[in-house]
């Protein structure tokens, strides 16, 4: 599903990603762990096509296609979804109108009919239950004045609605209490399926108790310094990031 080959990338003018190779097959869940500043968000931003980041070497294939050539919205419509570490507040734009527009943009791209207001509402209500999202958040502006937990639920709600093929979750767990963490994890687990790949980025092992990964990679200094099974997360938790060493 996702093949990252010798990826080097800059944030602004600063080289941050320094040679990453990673393959995630359909149905697999991979976790990336690593200390703050190791380049986790940079990697997810590069995959989503955020302006301000540039790839200097290497390539990324998504379902066999060159991902880096696609504009952000085409990546989204083709099924790449990034749950933001810091979801953006957008005053004046209604959350529910935004979600409907987004779902229909993706549906149209897939050759499906647009959902009308009624259909959208009923689908949306069902998914909102799953992430235990209060209904008044739909009539508010996007993320405006949402608590940290509400913003993350809104991200997962979007993921549930858009039904992407590649889900990238950038520290969706950070700042969440244990209840919110459980809800978010349940949302993610509900999305696990044989034709869907997931990349779960986290700083703590905690999330991986709920979302059990197939593979765990440790990112440090812009490189993957270790890869292993799910037990690697436990090791990291016990020993901290100190022992992994720095690639340079």
């Amino acid at each position, binding site marked *: 599903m996702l093949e990252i080959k010798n990826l080097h990338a800059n944030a602004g003018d600063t080289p941050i990603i320094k040679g990453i190779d990673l393959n995630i097959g359909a149905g697999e869940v991979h976790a990336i762990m690593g200390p703050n500043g190791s380049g986790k968000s940079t990697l997810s931003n590069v995959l989503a*096509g955020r302006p301000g980041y540039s790839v200097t070497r290497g390539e990324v294939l998504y379902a066999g296609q060159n991902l880096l050539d696609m504009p952000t*919205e085409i990546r989204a419509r083709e099924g790449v*979804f990034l749950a933001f570490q810091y*979801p953006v507040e*957008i005053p004046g*734009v209604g959350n529910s109108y935004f979600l409907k527009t*987004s779902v229909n943009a993706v549906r149209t791209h897939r050759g499906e009919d647009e959902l009308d207001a009624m259909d959208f509402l009923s689908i949306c209500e069902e998914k909102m239950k799953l992430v235990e999202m209060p209904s008044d958040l739909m009539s508010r502006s996007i993320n405006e004045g949402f608590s940290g937990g509400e913003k993350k639920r809104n991200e997962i709600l*979007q993921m549930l609605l858009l039904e992407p093929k590649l889900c990238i979750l950038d520290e969706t767990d950070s700042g969440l209490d244990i209840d919110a963490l459980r809800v978010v994890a349940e949302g993610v687990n509900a999305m696990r399926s044989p034709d869907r790949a997931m990349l779960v980025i986290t700083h703590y092992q905690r999330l991986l108790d709920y979302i059990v990964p197939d593979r765990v990679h440790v990112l440090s200094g812009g490189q993957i310094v270790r890869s292993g099974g799910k037990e690697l997360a436990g090791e990291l938790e016990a020993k901290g990031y100190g022992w992994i060493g720095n690639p340079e």
Partner: protein
Amino acid sequence: MKGAGKTSLAETWIHAFPAFAETVNDAPWQRALREEALACFSELGLPHTKLEAWRSTPLGVLERLMPPAPSGRVPDPESLLATGRAALAQHPLPEAIGSRGVFVDGHYCPALSSFESEASRLQFLPFSESAKSDQAISTRPPGFGELASPKQDAFTALNTAFAQGGGLLEIAPNHFEQKPIHLMFIASGSGELVCPRLLVRAGEGSRATVVMDFLSGAEESNHGKGLVNELSEIFVEENATLECIVIEREGIEGLHIGNLQTHQKRDSRLHLHTFSLGGGLVRNELGARLADTGAEVHMRGLYLGSGNQHMDNHTLVDHAMPHTTSRQIYKGVLGENARGVFRGLVHVRPDAQKIDSSQSNMNLLLSDKARIDTRPQLEIHADDVKCSHGSTIGKLDEEALFYLRSRGLSEPDARALLTEGFVAEICDALEGDSLRSFAQALVMDALASCIGNSAGAPE
């Protein structure tokens, strides 16, 4: 064009005045005021960019277009009716209109107007000419000329000298007018100077909504050519609540110099909304005088410009008494070569304690060539006050743009949505569903041309 010896626009108007005054069908009280006002205008001349208040307003366009003074004749009712009717059929109007008044080039058009109210709780009284009915006012109505003096402002002088067909809108004490009163000022596109004049009195304890809607005639080719120099004086009496909505949606050749002055008594509330959506050059002079304790004014404005449009808002809030409140939010979206000016002055007089005032001006520039000149100002002569002010100029938030695109929205859709989000709070503040959706539709239309024309503009 002509070199030295060219007659200036001001001179043209001054020369045209005697014939106008002969022709116009006046009550004596108005005639006397006209003469005085013309003397003031001759003294003042037209403003120019060397005057601080007019520094950023390109009035040179007036000298180029030379809009002639009105003749003073009242057009025959048939042609007024035809022009008015066509314009009404052409332009979208709100679903729920209560009373309405239609003015064509300032001339009151009784056949298209209706003020429905039991026992004259709501009345429109023409100043003189048009209605030869017994309703016309025979003496100078109290308040006329009290809030805007021809001695200080050339356009006030000009309006007072050449006004035709205006009138007094009177809301009786304790009357609650449910539906909006819609006043439509139609510019026929004659190219002339037109001076609409209005006096509004919201009686003690009354509640009403007044829409002042400026639009152009119906024909495809009608771009509202001419100069509309309107002046409104609005008195809000004790404990009254008035919502006043000014909509400027003239054609692209229209020049609009508006002056709206308000005076509020004790515990009154005024909501003043200005939507500047059309016209080539628009200038709004807005003055709010909080003349007694407990008075509250909420001013909101939105200006949307594209092409070579120029839009000015000059506000002055005068906190003349303690315990008064003012809120101002002005927002602008400017694309292409559009220009905007915001000058806001909040004045707190000595001994006017316990003032609560805020003022903000936010601007979104959609192109590198668009410009806004913004200067919110405070002048405080009392110490126990709560005042805030500020202004911003910016482009669309790149983070927000990326967020929307990462959810599948195309870049143009994302830009449009963010721009709509930026202006949303101004429309949302309108009371009443019918009026709100009417304003929203007009704003969306104007925004679409701002955004559309600026699409692909360099970052």
